[in-house]
């Protein structure tokens, strides 16, 4: 049944009073130097598309499937199949838009907009139905079916026409959704007045929070946000709270200005006028009292139109007459630059389904349309038009040609004739076109596809000249040898140029050789910094590329774990280069807090910086030590280590292992490898080692107790030796309290603990550093890996 509607899909009413037929196929005409290239065509009524950050393209089919396109191939398995609940029972009905969340890399969200058949409703019936906006989470190449979150379901489309339209994001992350008046196209209908009713969503552009579906209120996402014009904080999900602009007939497609955040909406006209509208906050486009800038006499005899003053109506930015023919405006997108000629950067590209054109509108410095110029004719039936993140123009033709890319073959910067690139790390090409790798960096250029006719329509390249930009000789590539391998030996920035012959078109890519990973620096914290429960941690990081250039827009993610001997607890993730995180108030003694900062650089290379913070100890006793094994038959005055006094632990010394004690008392029998020989002997010794970092040279006390004898060396100098027999577990005192001098930086501390006269007795010690006056020394840090301290000092 769905095929019946093909010819009737998506039309505005032309001047003839009947649905426009499907436009006749025409030859594509583009300005010289541009070609239209089919990316993927085997779709069933594709209605919308959007880009995933990794280069995959999602294409929505009207019946309710979203398909995945990668490398010009359509995946057999759809990302999601909603055919059972998408209503296609009308001209404009179906799955009408798909949008990828701007933070997809982090959250994996996509959004679908369609007319909904509830389970009890007759499938695909031409009856009143509600529109739905649903968020799903993508996992791999499919969505998690349980992740559905309905953000909007109170829009009612009474007829088969003018239903749901587009989903677009503003620069601040707010979501615009366009919704038609839900009225039938053929004749005048009272339903059209709903476009002026501010208590329903028909004929509106709404602006909502993509997380909740509620209207955008003041200070949403930032202090400068004024909120939606009719926002009611008591009822943020009411129609009024969500409405941004009104008086639309069928605002089917729109594009949001990348700086101002104002949508430019293509409002499909009725009998006379197609209008591009600038949807500023609170603007009223006048439908049905006005069509474009013209009064609609059919609708004037109604209180709504009688009340509406001309001054209340925002005139279209740009409008064109049907001039006795069919027309159906498809709102478009702003050219971000980077692929089309510079003169077109910032232009708004839009299309007409019936007239089969793509045009571009230039804006003046005040954001007003300056001039509209033709761009393409015979483009098929454009129903969606977007720029990829790297600035290539794509459009979707619903019946013929599918998804196409318009390629600039004359410009000096052209991605399209570029050969396929492979390198050690795949993918190695960032969206900005940069090819990234570490020296020596081997890239392989495969020209097979660019020589292939199926890849490149109208290709007549005979050969390519390749200049690697690193001073090596230019090489010529022909069909005889289409694989080219090249090694960039040194770190640097190179221009890789590929010139097609005999067409003389030139494509250029930047090759960056060096660490592709961003260099991340955590600014606000230092390793082994002491923190306490309830403290608010300032999380500030900077990211630079390998050449030291800042990456201010790279996404920054923070992961913070509280690590205790009982396990690891993750704190809520934090996003942003400047953020804060409040530590749990019940931070256990001697917890370590792992802070990891990851920055997503070009081409999804992730740079990471990690450091560890320490929970400030309430009692100051060091609980983390390197412990030697137990040595039997030795006493306190006998040495197991050669040259005990001058001993310095080397990380990796197999005789020592790292321990962390929950208690202030280091119970050696808990930690030493069971050794019958040791523990059955009446006398045995063991060593404990730690570095202590002091911010300055200072006098200090070492507070200790032990079972039994102990000796202590600080910086290879013996500072204490106590030959005693004493029990200790229940004694909370620091019996041994030598006065010492700590040097600035790392101090080496070696403790020898002896058990002298019992084979099965307890055996242990405790140690802390105190200020010279006996108060707690809170600014020294026990260090387990000296390189951590040293690297910190080098920062």
């Amino acid at each position, binding site marked *: 049944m769905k095929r019946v509607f093909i010819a009737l899909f998506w039309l505005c009413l032309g001047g003839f009073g009947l649905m426009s037929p499907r436009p006749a196929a025409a030859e594509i005409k583009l300005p010289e130097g541009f070609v239209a290239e089919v990316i993927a065509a085997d779709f069933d009524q594709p209605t919308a598309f959007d880009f995933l950050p990794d280069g995959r393209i999602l294409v929505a089919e009207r019946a309710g499937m979203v398909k995945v396109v990668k490398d010009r191939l359509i995946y057999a398995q759809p990302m999601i199949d909603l055919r059972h609940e998408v209503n296609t029972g009308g001209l404009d009905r179906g799955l009408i838009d798909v949008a990828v969340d701007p933070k997809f890399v982090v959250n994996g969200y996509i959004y679908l907009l369609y007319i909904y058949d509830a389970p009890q409703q007759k499938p695909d019936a031409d009856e009143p139905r509600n529109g739905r906006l649903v968020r799903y989470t993508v996992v791999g190449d499919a969505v998690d079916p349980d992740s559905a979150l309905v953000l909007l379901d109170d829009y009612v489309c009474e007829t088969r026409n003018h239903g749901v339209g587009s989903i677009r994001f503003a620069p601040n992350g707010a979501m615009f959704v366009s919704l038609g008046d839900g009225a039938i196209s053929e004749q005048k209908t009272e339903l059209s007045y709903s476009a002026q009713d501010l208590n329903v969503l028909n004929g509106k552009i709404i602006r909502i929070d993509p997380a909740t579906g509620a209207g955008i209120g003041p200070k949403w996402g930032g202090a400068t946000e004024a909120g939606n014009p009719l926002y009611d904080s008591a009822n943020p999900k009411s129609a009024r709270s969500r409405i941004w602009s009104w008086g639309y007939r069928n605002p089917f497609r729109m594009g949001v200005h990348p700086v101002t955040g104002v949508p430019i909406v293509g409002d499909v006209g009725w009998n006379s006028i197609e209008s591009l509208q600038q949807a500023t906050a609170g603007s009223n486009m006048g439908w049905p009292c006005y069509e474009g800038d013209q009064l609609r006499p059919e609708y004037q005899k109604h209180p709504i139109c009688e009340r509406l003053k001309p001054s209340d109506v925002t005139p279209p930015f740009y409008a064109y007459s049907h001039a006795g023919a069919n027309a159906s405006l498809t709102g478009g997108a702003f050219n971000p630059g980077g692929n089309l000629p510079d003169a077109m950067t910032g232009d708004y590209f839009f299309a007409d389904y019936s007239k089969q054109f793509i045009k571009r509108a230039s804006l003046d410095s005040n954001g007003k349309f300056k001039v509209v110029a033709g761009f393409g004719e015979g483009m098929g039936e454009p129903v969606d038009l977007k720029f990829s993140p790297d600035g290539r123009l794509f459009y979707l033709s619903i019946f013929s040609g599918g998804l196409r890319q318009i390629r600039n073959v004359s410009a000096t910067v052209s991605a399209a004739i570029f050969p396929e690139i492979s390198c050690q790390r795949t993918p190695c090409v960032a969206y900005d076109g940069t090819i990234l790798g570490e020296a020596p960096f081997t890239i392989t250029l495969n020209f097979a596809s660019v020589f292939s006719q199926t890849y490149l329509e109208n290709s007549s390249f005979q050969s390519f000249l390749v200049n690697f930009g690193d001073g090596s000789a230019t090489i010529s590539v022909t069909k005889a040898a289409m694989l080219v391998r090249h090694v960039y030996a040194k770190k640097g920035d190179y221009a890789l140029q590929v010139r097609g012959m005999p067409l003389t078109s030139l494509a250029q890519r930047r090759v960056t050789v060096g660490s592709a990973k961003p260099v991340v620096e955590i600014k606000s914290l230092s390793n082994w910094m002491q923190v306490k429960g*309830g403290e608010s941690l300032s999380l500030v990081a900077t990211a630079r590329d390998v050449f030291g250039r800042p990456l201010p827009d790279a996404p920054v993610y923070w992961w913070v774990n509280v690590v205790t001997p009982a396990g690891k607890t993750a704190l809520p993730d934090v996003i942003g280069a400047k953020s804060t995180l409040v530590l749990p108030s019940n931070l256990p003694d001697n917890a370590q807090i792992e802070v990891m900062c990851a920055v997503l650089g070009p081409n999804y290379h992730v740079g990471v910086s990690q450091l560890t913070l320490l929970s400030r100890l309430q009692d*100051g006793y060091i609980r983390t030590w390197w412990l030697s094994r137990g040595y039997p038959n030795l006493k306190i005055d006998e040495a197991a280590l050669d040259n005990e006094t001058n001993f310095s632990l080397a990380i990796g010394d197999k005789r020592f292992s790292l321990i962390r004690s929950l208690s202030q008392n280091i119970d050696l029998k808990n930690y030493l490898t069971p050794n019958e020989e040791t523990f059955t002997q009446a006398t045995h010794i063991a060593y404990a080692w730690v570095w202590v970092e002091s911010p300055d040279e200072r006098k200090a006390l070492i507070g200790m107790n032990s079972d039994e004898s102990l000796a202590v060396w600080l910086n290879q100098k013996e500072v204490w030796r106590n030959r005693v027999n004493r029990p200790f577990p229940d004694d909370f*005192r620091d019996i041994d*309290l030598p006065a010492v001098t700590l040097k600035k930086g790392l101090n080496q501390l070696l403790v020898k603990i002896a058990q002298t006269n019992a084979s099965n007795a307890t055996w242990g010690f405790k140690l802390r550093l105190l200020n010279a*006056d006996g108060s*707690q020394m809170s600014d020294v840090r026990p260090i387990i890996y000296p390189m951590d301290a040293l690297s910190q000092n080098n920062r």
Partner: protein
Amino acid sequence: MKLSCLQENLAKALNIVGRAVAPRTATLPVLTHILLATDNGRLRVSATNLELGVNCWIGAKVEDEGAITLPARTLTELVSLLPSDRIDLELNNRTQAVRVHCSKTDTNIKGIDAQEFPIVPVFDPEGAIYVNADVLRKLIAKTVFAAATDESRPMLTGVLIRMSEDRITMYASDGFRLSVCSGSLSQPIAEPRQVLVPAKTLAEVGRIVGDQQVPVAIAITPARGQVLFHLENVDIVSQLIDQKFPEVEALIPKKFETLTVLNTADFLKACKQASIFAREASDVVRVRITPSEAGEGSTVDITARADEKGDNMNELEASCTGIPIEIGFNVKFLIDVLSVIEAPQVALSTVTHKSPGLFKGLGDETFQHIIMPINLPKS
């Protein structure tokens, strides 16, 4: 007013508010009374002497709303002697007498109209500062004892409370000793605050806060005339002392010549023994510190001598660094401070026998106590 409550709860409430009742010599008779008022299904028990006011709420089954004041002593004594059972209170509005019925006991107590009772402010959470009950309890215990009890220098009868960012610090001094104790606030505050609260008030707060778990809210009235401590079911309101507390930070010695670390319990026991003799010699004890060369085997002698009674000497083991010193202290002050130090060892820093001694728990950075020395008679 007609209500029922449990004897146990009412007795506890009367005990809590009792300290705020004015003495019987008060010029306003109603101040010797306790206010009983129904309040949102609970019974509010209030007392005030105009300097200190306490509101306490207990659960009650309220049948008729109302309020009355009853003589504090009569009511408290009676309730404490009633059986542990339900108490029914019924006000006769005509006679302003309350019938107190419990088990088989029937009592009528004449009261004064509640309208005459001064208004005891209730808690307003706006701008309140929160501190954990155990922190507050520790701060009070470690400072209040050092405040002056004689009224000749009113500013010294108070405890200075300074709050800044996430720290709360209390200072108390009677001119001969100084206690400084600090702790964490439950929530950081934006602007530093400072108030001088009567030590008596804080002692009450410390007594009532008991084993409460929820944080205590401290509210300072905008004019800074009053402070309110909001506990679980109890509000304590107090006038602030409108005087300047001396700048005491400078008194805390920053350097020392001798550091002595002693077992807190041994030191306290020695002081208690010495006090038996010292009380007849102006409470003076002589502390002689003799560091050994190696630091090990140092000794501290605590000596008290009463010409009439005899003398006492205790030798304590200690870890000492620095020069030998012989210094005199008021033994009561020593007992006071050693009683509140929780650390098993106490660190005593001294400079000369004429300079104050600084006492800290070993490894404790939250508490400092200094005691002025006493000139020793030549022995």
